[in-house]
């Protein structure tokens, strides 16, 4: 079961990555993907260290107690899509709804995985904390992305696209 889920996650993530590359070019995809690691690894390792998250079934059994696919592949791809599709030039409420939907989806995926599999468990990590952490991560990734590629609201593809 867990293995099938991991394969599905890999395929979905590769598809998302390919979509990002096709849509905004490989430079933006690569920067967004790798910047997400800067956030997701320290965060998930700290949460595991504090016994707030557990990954009973994982790929690297010895090397780390965090899940590789979720932290290294799935989350970076989802947050990449979020930053690329973010409606920068729309009204505030559109941006808030968009962000709430996306971050809600991330929280929902995590909840679903914790229910149907042993890939991840949240012993002392309520949904609103997960929502908050995802929100912070997505915000930082997007802000860095907009700065890096000189994207202003409505300014098109930016300087280094």
């Amino acid at each position, binding site marked *: 079961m867990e293995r099938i889920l991991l394969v599905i996650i890999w395929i979905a993530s590769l598809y998302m990555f390919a979509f990002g590359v096709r849509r905004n070019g490989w430079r933006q995809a690569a920067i967004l993907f*790798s910047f997400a690691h800067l956030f997701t690894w*320290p965060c998930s*390792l700290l949460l595991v260290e504090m016994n707030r998250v557990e990954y009973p079934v994982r790929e690297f059994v010895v090397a*780390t107690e965090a899940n590789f696919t979720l932290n290294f592949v799935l989350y970076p791809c989802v947050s990449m899509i979020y930053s690329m599709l973010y409606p920068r030039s729309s009204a505030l409420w559109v941006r808030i709804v968009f962000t709430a939907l996306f971050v809600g989806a991330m929280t929902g995926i995590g909840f679903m995985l914790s229910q149907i599999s042993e890939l991840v468990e949240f012993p002392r990590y309520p949904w609103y904390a997960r929502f908050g952490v995802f929100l912070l991560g997505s915000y930082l990734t997007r802000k860095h992305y907009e700065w890096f590629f000189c994207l202003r609201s409505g300014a098109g593809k930016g300087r280094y696209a």
Partner: protein
Amino acid sequence: MTDTMEKCILGAVYIVCLAMLAFVPKQRRRMAIAIYLFQETLAWIMGLLVVEYGLLAYPVRELTTMRTSFVFEFLALPTTSVYYNLYYPESRALYVRVVYTVACVAAVTALELWLEANTDLVEYIRWSGFWSFVTITLSLVLSRLYCKLFLRGLPSM
């Protein structure tokens, strides 16, 4: 405390790396970030693999739930890679570039060999300085290729 020296070294590595990153020239900050992120992604996978297959061990480390070296993969190697690329003698003869690369890799490998011999920060199990040399060379050369690919056709950054 028996591992006071290790902790001091770890702290020193953090301070030196962060200071080095702070001194990256402002107009080349984007290039440095691109290289840093690339190297960190790569180092993370390689670090997990060598520990998972029991080739290396890091007895004294920051996190108990991560058996690889957080500081090496997250900070030290990416920082080295950034400076390797910042001062890469692109317009010089081939032998200059080769000597430059070998010197950089040798410095990192020598440091690691010293740490292996004198501290508990890193232990070779089925590993040797030779393999460190090979993998670090590979990492830096790949980061150089990535950097060139990234900068191609872009305004200077």
